[in-house]
């Protein structure tokens, strides 16, 4: 039976010299005192969500049309090939795209100072789609890297226009910004559809861009998403400055932040992440909206604490929905975007109706 004493090295005969650190813990059982600014409260949900994500990732490796059981990995070369050519890339792609989408949404909400906007509804993803479409028409043979770069630039342009117009709306009317975003995203999306129709590329837009899914992900076709992870890390690096930006232009300047430059950096983070996910897996809705909003309800708006949690929760949501999509009508698949449409809408209703924690 396990007892607390048994875990103390000094009490077992094998270890001759007990470490002084253990002695301290044993004597008082005291936790170090924490002020209100340390992240003790944020650590628990962080560890919990990381465990859930890890469990889902393992499950994802063994869910699919081809049967694959853990034992076969040591003996069967075909099983190993399936794992490294398809299952592992697909799992990683869902994790990378999910965390990127959630962080893109969080940063966009910070810049717009509004909780109800996200890149896939307010024009960023539609801008990226426009970029991909233009490359496909003008240079059909362009590499996926060129497509990503053009999509990023187009997304940046579309988001800049959205943000400069959104900042002119009165802050006393918080629902004007997302309404404007929906209309703006709809207009850009309509332009994409019109151009695609004219160029006879409607199938590309409707099937590939507008309904994100992971069934086409293989080794060699998702690696660009690692760049999205780099931008998530960049967001974490400037987390304090982004939090200050969320307090408004004047407070930011008062604290010595270069407000305009931080807005530009945030825009680049949002646009590049969105463009990468649109290029690799297509548009996946709701993740950027519900994940940051739910995390904000629970742990608040201090981005240094929320960014890791938002990234992990976004990955968990997308991976979980992808697994559901694989199982719902097995052996056929439901695209992750469709599953998220249902799950995300329910989660959004929860965001609207749950009472926020008062801290």
């Amino acid at each position: 039976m396990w007892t607390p004493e048994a875990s103390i090295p000094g009490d077992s005969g094998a270890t001759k010299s007990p470490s002084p650190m253990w002695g301290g813990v044993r004597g008082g059982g005291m936790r170090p005192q924490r002020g209100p600014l340390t992240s003790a409260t944020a650590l628990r949900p962080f560890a919990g969500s990381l465990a859930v994500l890890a469990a889902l990732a393992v499950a994802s490796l063994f869910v699919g049309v081809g049967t694959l059981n853990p034992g076969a990995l040591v003996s069967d070369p075909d099983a190993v090939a399936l794992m490294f050519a398809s299952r592992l890339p697909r799992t990683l792609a869902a994790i990378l795209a999910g965390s990127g989408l959630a962080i893109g949404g969080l940063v966009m909400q910070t810049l717009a100072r509004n909780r109800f906007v996200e890149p896939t509804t307010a024009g960023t993803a539609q801008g990226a789609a426009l970029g991909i479409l233009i490359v496909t028409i003008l240079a059909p043979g362009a590499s996926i890297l060129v497509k990503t770069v053009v999509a990023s630039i187009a997304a940046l342009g579309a988001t800049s226009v959205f943000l400069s117009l959104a900042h002119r709306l009165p802050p006393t009317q918080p629902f004007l910004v997302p309404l404007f975003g929906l209309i703006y995203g709809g207009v850009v999306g309509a332009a994409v559809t019109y151009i695609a129709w004219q160029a006879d590329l409607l199938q590309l837009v409707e099937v590939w861009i507008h309904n994100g899914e992971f069934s086409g992900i293989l080794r060699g076709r998702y690696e660009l998403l690692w760049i999205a992870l780099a931008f998530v890390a960049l967001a974490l690096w400037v987390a304090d400055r982004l939090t200050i930006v969320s307090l408004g232009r004047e407070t930011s300047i008062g604290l010595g932040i270069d407000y305009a430059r931080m807005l530009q950096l945030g825009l680049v983070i949002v646009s590049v992440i969105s463009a990468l996910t649109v290029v690799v897996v297509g548009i996946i809705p709701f993740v950027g909206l519900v994940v940051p909003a739910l995390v904000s309800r629970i742990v608040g708006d201090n981005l240094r604490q929320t960014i890791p949690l938002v990234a992990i929760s976004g990955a968990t949501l997308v991976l979980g929905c992808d697994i559901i999509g694989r199982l719902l009508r097995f052996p056929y698949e439901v695209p992750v975007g469709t599953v998220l449409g249902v799950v995300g809408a329910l989660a959004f209703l929860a965001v609207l109706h749950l009472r926020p924690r008062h801290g």
Partner: protein
Amino acid sequence: MIEIEDVSFARQGTPVLQDISLSIPAGGVTALVGPNGAGKSTLLSLMARLLPLETGRISIAGKSVAHTRSDALARTVAILRQDTLVSSRLRVGELVGFGRFPHSRGRLTDEDRHLIDDALREFDLTGMADRFVETLSGGQRQRAMVAMAYCQGCDCMLLDEPLNNLDMFYARELMRILRDLADRQGKTIVIVLHDINHAATYADRIVALRDGRLVSFDRTDQVLVPERLEQIFGYRMEIATVDGQPVVLHHR
């Protein structure tokens, strides 16, 4: 402490400030007063680098506002404006802690934590340090914002109508704290005030603007005479004396 020379400012061709020159000495409370549209907030925004300086020069503690890096100025001058913080889910302790950002760049030292606790205590916020800002009343939120500006630890503080959302109790409380900071810590405080009686009670000097021009800059008791108040506000008001203190009967 604050040198303003030949400052003019125009918005879309309409002059908002014209040829303002004044020199505010270090220490004490200076009130900026004047009727609506006089240019008080514009002048304060120019001092605070929230608006770009078009003509003239402003320097604070020898640092030119136009030519000094913003993060260096943030260690010299703290500003408080009417930002909308309504939906922020930062905790009060975190918000006040961001006042240390110009010094710590986000890595709080023990000294920073000490100063944050100090600011929370000074503004009677210790009990709500763990509450989210959006759950506070307007007055509490305003106090948290002032506490953040105080926590910045600057010699000079610029405040734009900080009494706007406060009831009489907290308005008086805030003015007393600011007076105390000037007396005890030698802070230089410039504050835009609507109510001339708050200026009369708590300010050492009054800067009065009207239609973008400097009307008077003098010791408080020198400004509080009927002729000069009429010059500033455009109508005659009586001044009573209660316990040797002037009280402007501006509402009659």
